[in-house]
């Protein structure tokens, strides 16, 4: 197992290097002079020259990359042009709402997906299964921002049950905090629930057709014990795979959700940085998100081994 982890870690290094090169290149893909794009025409030439020197744009590109990488490895991702603060501090301030949103959305998705997926598979082709698969189709085809607006319209504007925007930290005020996160988390969680439901249903159907299930039933085990004791654990592998693959969608969804609900998270920070043309901030946040995404996928790979001993042995 340790060997698998080390091998997987080593394989990540070249990808990480290419990711940093890609993020570095972002600034240089800008048509024209990036300084002119970032700053208004009226800004003084000396200010522009200072920023150019600070970003190292007056030096050869290879030197720029090596210098930038050196700084990144020391944890210095540069400073935001907008507020002059280090990128790390900008992200640090925004990480808590994003993590709370992701955690709540993940919980909602699992709470919905498991019962719906299991009942759909066990009652295949019956009305309850059709309802489950229709729900999955709805969740997959519904854009995040549209679902968010529908939820705002019904639960915020019409029924006035929940706040439609803003954020309260649940660690400071649990009730107001959870209320401020319910609609964003449902928006994000429903799409994820749809994908997990679909995957769980099909992997359960596959597992239910296995010989060991027939044997378990022949021994007189109840359907509930067959599913809990034999089928579910074997059907979990594809679900973990999908959870790993969906992390990217979850992060993308969080960008939109935070934007719609005005949550001060990392996703909102990316959008704000893009529109402010704050390229050092865009570079820094995108790099951090990509590294987080790679490490999460690494964690998912390691999780396989823990769930399935066959993978561990190979």
């Amino acid at each position, binding site marked *: 197992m340790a060997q698998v982890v080390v091998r997987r870690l080593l394989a990540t290094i070249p990808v990480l290097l290419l990711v940093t090169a890609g993020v570095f290149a972002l600034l240089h*893909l800008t048509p024209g002079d990036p300084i002119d794009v970032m700053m208004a025409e009226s800004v003084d030439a000396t200010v522009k020259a200072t920023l150019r020197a600070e970003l190292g744009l007056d030096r050869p590109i290879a030197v720029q990359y090596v210098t930038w990488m050196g700084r990144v490895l020391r944890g210095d991702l540069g400073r935001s042009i907008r507020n002059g603060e280090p990128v790390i501090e900008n992200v640090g301030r925004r990480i808590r709402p994003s993590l709370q949103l992701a955690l709540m959305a993940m919980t909602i998705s699992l709470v919905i997906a498991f019962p719906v997926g299991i009942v759909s598979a066990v009652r295949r082709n019956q009305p309850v299964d059709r309802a489950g698969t229709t729900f999955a189709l709805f969740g997959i085809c519904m854009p995040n921002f549209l679902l968010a607006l529908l939820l705002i319209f019904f639960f915020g504007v019409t029924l006035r049950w929940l706040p439609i925007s803003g954020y309260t930290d649940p660690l400071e005020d649990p009730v107001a905090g959870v209320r401020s996160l319910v609609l964003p988390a449902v928006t994000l969680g429903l799409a994820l629930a749809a994908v997990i439901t679909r995957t769980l249903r099909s992997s359960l159907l596959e597992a239910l057709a296995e010989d060991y299930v027939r044997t378990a039933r022949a021994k007189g085990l109840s359907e509930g014990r067959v599913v809990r004791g034999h089928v579910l654990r074997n059907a979990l592998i594809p679900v973990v795979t999908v959870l790993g693959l969906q992390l990217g969608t979850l992060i993308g969804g969080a960008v939109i959700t935070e934007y719609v609900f005005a949550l001060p998270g990392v996703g909102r920070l990316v959008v704000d940085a893009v529109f402010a043309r704050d390229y050092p901030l865009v570079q820094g946040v995108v790099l951090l998100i990509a590294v987080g995404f790679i490490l999460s996928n690494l964690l998912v790979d390691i999780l396989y081994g823990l769930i399935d001993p066959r993978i561990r042995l190979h």
Partner: protein
Amino acid sequence: MGSSILGSVSTRLGAAILLIALALAFGAPALAPHDPLKQNLGNALAKPGARHWLGTDNVGRDVLSRVVWGTRVSLVAGFVSVTLALLAGSVLGLVAGYCGGTIDGLLMRAMDAVLSFPPLVLALALGAVLGAGLTGVLIALGVVYTPTFARLMRGQVLSITARDYVDAARALGAPGWRIACKHVLPNATAPIVVQASLSVAFAILAEASLSFLGLGIQPPAASWGSMINAGRGYLQHAPWIVFGPGAALFVTVVGLNFVGDAVREALDPRIREQGRSA
């Protein structure tokens, strides 16, 4: 049996939705009842009715006409970005799979690097540097979807080049490019077409998301995502500004998903086999 009938119903429904969307996209100038850009402040936020079936927006523009014109943007974004990704990915996958060695390693690690970014975040970052507008979105989405096609094509090439008929062609002295074009490509097409048909719906969703965030086609031109974003400030008093383009987007994505599933069912032998045994 029940599921096969349901399958054919959903396929027909998907095909009908796609045909209607294509007709609206091509025939927008003739089919849109009003000028999608013409403002009429005296008739702003008018409710849906006989004159304006989907109502008017905050500056009095006909929502239905803008939805019809928005179809064009969405379909262009979906089909063109996937075509770009398909072409780039197929070439890269073909080269990687056929050449092997260092070239294969380099190209595939580059594809892994692209896949290391959450798709929407990468599209946002690329959109930021390429500038707002349809061209930037098309290129950004093309880049985002390229690795999927490259990996798929590479896998196909590796499996096809191990077959006897490719060995035979080599033994007869056929040059590499000829083997790639005449033997490998035609046999690798089916899974690529399946992937492309499934990707179009997601590309349309991605374009709408980018337009919603303000990076897609710029106002006053109509796109579903930007219309929904513009309408969210009027959700309480004029929800039709959001619901019209929202319904169009949702229905189109459902239809394309049905068509994608049907294409997969028709071209993927494993699924076809499952369908028969079910």
